[in-house]
């Protein structure tokens, strides 16, 4: 992860939205219908959804 990318100083209200969508795909479709640029992430639960493994990975800072 590219940590702490300097956010643009102008408030979000003054900028053209460019969106990354994780989850419900119709939200991305609806944004596209409104002419918004969207990148949809094919999101899957980390560690295959194995919560124990996930906690372990988080402890390891992964």
């Amino acid at each position: 992860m590219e940590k702490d990318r300097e956010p643009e100083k102008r408030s979000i209200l003054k900028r053209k939205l460019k969106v990354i969508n994780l989850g419900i795909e119709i939200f991305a479709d609806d944004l596209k219908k409104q002419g918004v640029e969207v990148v949809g992430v094919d999101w899957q639960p980390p560690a295959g959804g194995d919560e124990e493994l996930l906690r372990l990975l988080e402890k390891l800072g992964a």
Partner: protein
Amino acid sequence: MFKIIVEKGNYRDSVTLMKVSNEVSKLKGVSQAAVLMATPLNKRFLADAGFKGSEVEKAGPDDLIIAIEAASEEVLESSVSRVEEMLSSRESVEAEEIRPRTLTSAVKLMPDANLALISIPGRFAKREAMNALESGLNVFLFSSNVSREDEVELKEAAKARRLLVMGPDCGTSIINGVVLGFGNVVRRGSVGIVSASGTGIQQVSTLLDGEGLGISHAIGTGGNDLSEKVGGMTTMEGIRLLEEDEGTRVIVLISKPPGPKTSTKVLNAASRSSKPLIVNFLGEAGAGSGKQVKAVTLEDAARMASGFVKGKKAGTRPFSDSQSRVRSLAQSESSGMSGTQKYIRGLYSGGTLCYESQVILAPLMGEVFSNAPLRPESRLEDANISRGNTCIDMGSEEFVVGRPHPMIDYSLRKNRILKEARDTETAVVLLDVVLGYGSNEDPAKELGPTIVSAKKLAGTGGRHISVVASIVGTREDPQDIQKQAKVLASAGVVLMPSNAQAARFAALVASRGAVGRKLFGDGKR
């Protein structure tokens, strides 16, 4: 015969799965089909439908289940391959656009992205939202089931980076005219909204649109932002942003009543604003201080905002239509009701509309029971069983984990309408119909036939039930509001111009006109 397939660790969002389920259910020879994530709620749903077995019991919320009942082995085989095909074709359509697997790679693909819209299961949401903030993205967090501690952590991280976190549990925002989540196509204008409630934004923005007015921005804060634990962090940031925004002339603040400390803190912070602030802490009346005024209902808030923009004082009245017309319509709705039919059954897709109805109904009808009640003692023991006057928020957790929101998936609400119609005590079924982006593409097609059946069902028992609804929408919404209204009206639904008026009308019908005196006072209008 049945077939159940469990695909371990294969996540698909609930809306996509609903579409697949619906299509496969329609295949010839298929008697029922469900494709869903194995959340406890969905597993119960499967068991009720007759899909039982150890593979279902063992499956967890990140496992995909394909469950089909069909007439023959051949149909089972072909419908399973149809499911697989639909799930993979969806992927291939998206593949043309390149679908990164992680947020990190998405940021590389769109380095100037400025917002992440996150609607994954709640237990993973904080992790991804924090990743987004660390990548310099503002966050719209639709996911619910995120702890208050995690919410505070996210909001503090956002503050340090001068970013905005809308959510968790944020249904709607309109930023620069762009609808995020569930929202309506409304005009742009000079009213800014900061709201802990998504349907609050939808009701106020559509009512303003109907008056020819528009929205500068509507900032959703998430349902828990004004809890004492979170302390209104996003609300205060939202008010500050709208204060700076040149396009905003008046600000509307919407929430259920917050805790006393947070209420004082937020209103004090807002009192530094140079712009008029309409405070709609649903049900709270009072004068407000300085440039602040209080609105009891969402409709009052819209009317007051419109008054500020148009420079006219806003009057309040219970109905848009005349008293005599409303009374005679109510009378015709209650004629044919039997003596046992006394109660209103509100079945809501919008949580705040459910709350607003309780605020309106309680002083008129007495105690209103709910799964999201005004007072803890009015909580229903079982949200599936109505008691007396009842308002159900069908978007609350017990109905939606692993299922699409009731604004998209009408199936639970349709079943409930029929159940209420069978109850000899039901006088009025009260509904909200929410249009706009995110919502079901043709709600009237879903509801119309069910309402006709419900009325028939009551009719065979010698009863007449009244169905009252309001449509939250605009002429520009994708669903065609006029067509929606026409189909609902022809199914026998009485449509009111706002949720508040629908609730008042329901009370007038259920009480056989008795609440008229409280509503209209003694004077004739």
